[in-house]
């Protein structure tokens, strides 16, 4: 889902609790270049918004970075 919204992004997701609804994701995307951390998080959260809205995800810890 994140990869579809941010083409070229490298996404690594960990299931924190084993229940698949508390996730930790590290996202590295070329689209982050020049954006503040806030805006980088906004992009990712917008990409997964539907899964929050339908309740599939309760919590998402996020770390974003620009690929080197």
């Amino acid at each position, binding site marked *: 889902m994140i990869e579809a919204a941010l083409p070229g992004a490298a996404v690594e997701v960990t299931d924190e609790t084993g229940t698949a609804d508390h996730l930790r994701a590290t996202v590295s995307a070329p689209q982050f270049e020049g954006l503040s*951390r*806030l805006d980088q*998080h*906004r992009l990712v959260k917008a990409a997964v918004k539907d899964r929050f809205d339908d309740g599939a995800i309760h919590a998402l810890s996020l*770390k974003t970075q620009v690929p080197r």
Partner: protein
Amino acid sequence: MSVADAELKQKVEELIAANPVLLFMKGTPEMPRCGFSMRVVQVLDSLDVEYGAIDVLPALQPLREVTTELSDWQTFPQLYVNGELLGGADIVEEMFDSGELAEALGVEQPEAAPASAAAAPAQSPPLQIE
């Protein structure tokens, strides 16, 4: 997403303007009711900084609508410094670890290891049997 309550929005704007460091959180600093909120409280406490804290739980949905309009941010906790949203727990912790948070708050970075590092399990020495 419905339109935010204008009166509540004004109240929130006044609070953000009146408090140089303001945390919107679930629960209170003494009794956080969410792990993410607790992490931000721990960071602020370790920096020994004074801050205002608002418990969002009594009005979660109306406040979510307000912060969405004000800051384009839907989740709590939210830390505001000098009227600007810094971020939620992940960003606050990342900025703490890098020293950016202490800088933004105008305080010294503590010598002690940050809370997130302290929480990592320490490598215990192997047991030896003689």
